[in-house]
């Protein structure tokens, strides 16, 4: 019997090449340490990439929201810098009364049982502190006109560094616009948003919150809120509600790669316009006379004031919308 030596050599060569090829592929797979999870994260181009997950006790998962590997803001407090854009010496809710109400909220919400819900989120090196404060505030009466775009908002934040605000990668900048200011998508698609961007060479986390009185049916909770100076002037309370949403998310997902669920929803998105149990205003809890007269609703009290704020997703148990922790 004659062996088909040529064919055997060919098959052998093929097997050797195939084995070499398979071995060469192995280093391309992510190396995973014991106890370490890996995650698929968006690559910004419609696909996803696999990254190593955290090791440590600061990250607790399995509560309806996923950790995607990025950092959280852990400052205690996290400074929130406000840029009041447009005319805030006007009428309705475009007034210094609104400015004062919102800034008072920022100075007092830190370390409340409400803000402590955020301490259930963390990254490889620690948890969110649950503390935030007003880091500074300036007015920009209209450097970019009355019709804004995302690019123009970037310009507003960028120019704030030379107009009184520090350049702080660990803080959150919020542009709050008066109700005569339009922004692409505001009122038709969103009430606010947050993002991260390199500005003047630094990674800056910034957000936009419009005066909800521009579209009460879309973004306002109630026409007269617990802090309304007069009936049907609910802008300040509505701004505070959106502001809590954006600051919560900017802290737990500052670079858009930390905490969100499989459908892309961040912690505050999961409870958007969900308030839980509410009570009717009285002067004893800090509501204004107009709020008491109108029977405005509230669900939080601190710093001598009552507020109506959406619940936040507590990253514990099965995960749920909560008003406070504990």
């Amino acid at each position, binding site marked *: 019997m004659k062996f088909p030596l040529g064919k055997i050599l060919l098959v052998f060569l093929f097997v050797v090449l195939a084995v070499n090829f398979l071995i060469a592929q192995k280093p391309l797979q992510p190396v995973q340490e014991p106890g370490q999870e890996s995650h698929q994260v968006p690559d910004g181009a*419609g696909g996803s990439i696999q990254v190593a997950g955290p090791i440590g006790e600061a990250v607790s998962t399995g509560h309806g929201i996923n950790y995607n590997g990025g950092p959280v803001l852990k400052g205690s407090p996290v400074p929130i810098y406000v840029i009041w854009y447009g005319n805030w010496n006007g009428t309705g809710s475009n007034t210094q009364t609104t400015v004062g109400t919102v800034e008072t909220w920022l100075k007092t919400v830190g370390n409340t049982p409400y803000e402590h819900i955020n301490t259930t989120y963390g990254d490889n090196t620690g948890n969110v502190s649950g503390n935030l404060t007003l880091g500074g505030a300036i007015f920009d009466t209209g450097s970019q006109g009355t019709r804004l775009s*995302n690019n123009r908002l970037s310009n507003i934040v960028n120019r704030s560094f030379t107009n009184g605000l520090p350049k702080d990668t660990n803080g959150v900048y919020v542009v709050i616009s008066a109700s005569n200011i339009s922004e692409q998508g505001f009122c038709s698609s969103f*009430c606010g*948003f947050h*993002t991260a961007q390199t500005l003047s060479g630094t990674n800056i986390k910034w957000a936009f919150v419009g005066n909800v009185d521009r579209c009460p*049916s*879309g973004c306002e909770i109630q026409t007269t809120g617990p802090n309304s100076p007069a009936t049907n002037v609910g802008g300040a309370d509505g701004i505070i509600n959106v502001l809590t949403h954006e600051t919560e998310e900017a802290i737990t997902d500052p670079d858009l*790669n930390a905490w*969100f669920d499989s459908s892309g929803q961040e912690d505050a998105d999961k409870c958007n316009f969900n308030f839980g149990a509410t009570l009717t205003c009285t002067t004893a809890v800090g509501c204004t006379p107009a709020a008491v007269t109108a029977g405005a609703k509230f669900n939080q009290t601190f710093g001598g004031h009552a507020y109506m704020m959406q619940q936040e997703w507590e990253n514990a148990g099965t995960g749920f919308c909560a008003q406070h922790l504990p």
Partner: protein
Amino acid sequence: MPHGALKGLFSFMVATAVLAATQEPVSPKLTPTIITATKQVILFTGLERQVLQAIQKKDKSAVEAMTTDDFQIEMPDADPLAGPDWLDSVASRDFTLKSFVLRQMSVADLGDAAVVKYDRIQQATFKGKNDSGEFFVIDLWKKSGDSWRLANRYVARIAQVPASQKIQPKPTGKE
């Protein structure tokens, strides 16, 4: 608002959107942002989902209850499709809507009417062939008492999606 005026407004908005898409010289970069959706976006996302879920279940009566009697669909390069014909088509055994994702929704609130715009990515088959794709949809909803009913739809396919491709809930992760 009179019915004729509403339809005129809807046609104008559709024409404007189509013209804008074809004539816009600048394509703005996609800034990754995470939005706080308006109450109307939350409401109409829920309603659009209900319609699509009824189609998935082939529940004709549920779809009929959510559409006006004169509901019709308009598409590029085709005659308007009457609601009953559309419903027969999507509720037939020939069509299977496996999954869908809605994104980039915006709502123009006109009081008793609302114009809703969004992107729909679907995995579907029609007569055994892949009918998956990405669609740009403009819907006109009219308020009827306390509820909303779909009155008119403009829909255009803007991209093909391979049958094997898994739909990403948020392709960029952040919309």
